[in-house]
């Protein structure tokens, strides 16, 4: 059995306010301890901002700046420049934003930061909805998932944020999941060796919002990967695709059937989700294969 390759340096404190079994706090623990103490974080409003701790307490052992929902990437850009002014080029500036604050409300700030290639690490904790305000839909909510604002299921597909960022030519963009800890840790480590904007989307199953038992976050995130709903891959320089888990072994039903947000799904809708996943998976594999060929031919 492979051990988790993490040295916990106590950079994330206990006593934080995340729900029992929260995958966002689990991911935060791994990422903070991989980056190390020489870092500063930016949080827009989100579950993460709550987990940071109620004033006057903090759950992070690094400095945190809480900004507005629109402006995570802009605030991080400013922080980066301020630190550079003080000669702290090596201090990592990391954004921890939700999917609402990334795909939707903070998107223009993110797009322009990537366009400027700001030297920041942007982590999106993707729980597929506006969760801390009561589980409303975001543009990251997948097809047919029910939310407080789409009780009958969301009629549109999840936005392809990775494709959008790749189209910016971003140096490094990748997906990760808490059930694949070593992959997540390796991606954080890799991102630390790269200059410019780096973006990591981490799937964090929301136990309450998705309707899951408290102990299931890790295993459900693995089902997301195994079903192809959340493929693990990375894109370098906007075009070099690598699939990190080239193994779609399960039907999406295995993943969806565990979650209350899909309880209303009928056969047709299930088939639609499966078809969409199959199509995206085929495209991803094609891109990964093309990248391998391109690399081989130099």
């Amino acid at each position, binding site marked *: 059995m492979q051990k988790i390759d993490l040295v916990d340096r106590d950079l994330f404190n206990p006593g934080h306010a*995340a729900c029992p079994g929260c995958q966002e706090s689990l991911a935060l623990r791994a990422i903070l301890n991989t980056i190390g103490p020489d870092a500063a974080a930016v949080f827009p409003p989100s579950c993460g901002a709550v987990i940071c701790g109620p004033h006057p307490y903090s759950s992070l052992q690094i400095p945190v700046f809480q900004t507005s929902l629109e402006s995570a990437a802009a605030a991080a850009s400013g922080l980066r420049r301020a630190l550079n002014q003080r000669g702290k080029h090596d201090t990592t500036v990391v954004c921890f934003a939700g999917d609402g604050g990334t795909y939707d409300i903070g998107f223009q700030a993110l797009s322009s930061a990537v366009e400027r290639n700001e030297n920041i690490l942007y982590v999106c904790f993707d729980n597929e909805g506006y969760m801390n305000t009561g589980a409303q839909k975001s543009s990251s909510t997948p097809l047919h998932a029910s939310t407080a604002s789409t009780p009958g299921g969301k009629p549109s597909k999840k936005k392809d944020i990775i494709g959008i960022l790749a189209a910016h030519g971003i140096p490094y963009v990748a997906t990760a999941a808490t059930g694949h800890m070593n992959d997540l840790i390796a991606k954080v480590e890799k991102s630390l060796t790269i200059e410019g904007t780096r973006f990591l989307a981490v799937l964090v199953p929301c136990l309450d919002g998705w309707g899951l038992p408290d102990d299931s976050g890790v295993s459900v995130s693995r089902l997301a990967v195994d079903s192809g709903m959340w493929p693990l891959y990375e894109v370098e320089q906007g075009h070099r695709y690598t699939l990190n888990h080239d193994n779609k072994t399960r039907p999406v039903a295995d993943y969806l059937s565990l979650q209350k947000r899909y309880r209303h799904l009928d056969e047709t809708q299930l088939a639609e989700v499966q078809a969409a996943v199959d199509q995206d998976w085929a495209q991803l594999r094609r891109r990964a294969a093309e990248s391998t060929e391109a690399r081989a031919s130099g």
Partner: protein
Amino acid sequence: MTAATSPLWSNGSTAVIHTGTWRSATPTHNDLPSPCHQACPVGGQIARWIGQLRDGDVLGAWLTLVEHNPFPSVAGRICHHPCETACNREALDEAISICRLERAIGDRAIAEGWRYPEPTINRSQRIAVIGGGPAGLSVAYQLRRRGYGVTIFESQPALGGLLRYGIPPYRLADDVLDGEIARLLDLGIEARTGETIDADAFARLRAGYDAVYVATGAAKSKRLPSIDPARPWVIDSAAYLAETNAGGQPRTGHRVIVIGGGSAAMDVARTARRHGRDVTVLALEKETQMPAQREEVVEALEEGVQLVDGAMLQSVTEHDNGSLTLHCIRVDFVPGSMRGEFTIEPVAGSEFELSGDAVVPSIGQQADPAPFGGGDGPLLGVDDAFRTGLDNVWAGGDVASMERFVTAAIGMGKDAAEAIDRAMNPGTAAIVDAGDAVPYAAINTYYHPPLARTEAAVRPVAERVMGFDEVQLALDAEAALAEAGRCFSCGTCIYCDNCYLFCPDMAVSRLPDGYAIRTEYCKGCGLCVRECPTGAIQMRAGK
């Protein structure tokens, strides 16, 4: 954080907030018994020694094994391995090849010449053991390790009991048996071979020793009512095997009919095949009901033994030329609730005949408990602690039980040694049963991807019938390591850190020798329990 509170900066730590109050159930690290351990007649901490083997600590694995069983190389060859039947991994793909792993470790110990640690104390009490089979050797070993002076009285010229005089060398090679017995005697056990203990000698032993353990086995062959044992063509199976195991070749005539469906019948039949005889086994049971281990039956058939199953001998006609006609009938065999109990129903009109030159009834062995206060019963009666009705007399193995397995005899010896130790030195702590075994459901199989069982090689049939070389071959070191890697380590912490690192609340702390729950922070989500690959941490209701 001690800095003064700032209106602008949050410089305190959330560690002052005790989220443990949210909890309604609490994880607890607690090693639990594995089902294989529960099923093992010697209670052999299987998950632990397989883990040591997997970690490359073969010596450590052997030391764990011999805590319970001084015969890992013997058991690794001929144990009926109920551990494998109970193995949790069977529910995923195939049971762990526990028995062959045990052999691999035992054989390594013989090859390396590993010795037992000297007893750390010496006690003044002396114990007499009557019978040097697996039960007697096991009790002697366990008592000597606990510091007692031990003398074994054995009527045969060499120790081993049925391991030597019953089980043939193609299943258990002599050097293996000799190696494990010699090492055991090196602990300082006195062996007096060639001494048969009768009722008078028994009385002298009781007077001269602090305790006596009776392990005389069950040596008398059971009689078959349909034939007269005095006829020259009737061969006693125990005597036959004792002679062949010692290298002899009894005169039997060419066509040998073996009667019985157990290990002894298979051993007689396969031995006779090795002497070039034409062999037929006549069994009451249908092939799949036969009490012999399945692989023994399969191997016997491969070696050319003919099986007539579900049939019974009714009478024998002797012809002038010395040949025999066996009058048989088909029967329906219905096993009873106890091992060895059954009912049979002859099938009317199904009579048939077999021809042969010799008949070897191998239908089981009877104990002779009379000299040891046993009266006329078939067994020497013992209580839960293997104490007989006589003061300071204990008993175990075939003389006291119908189990009739080698490891059962070894386990009885071990348990009796613990009981004798407690009786001789009342301070000795009692062994407590650790509770229920870890169920398959407690194992997170994500960490154990499907992987085929590593099978050991078997000697080709043509070579087998040419002599008495071992049929079942060993796993090599690499194969043993791969097989050990398949074990779930049910209920035994492997220090993988999953519980520690998957906790979103930093509520599991890592200690030098394990883990602890920081109950002031644990919210009771159960993630640590769910992501444990071994079931060594459990959720308990309450705070």
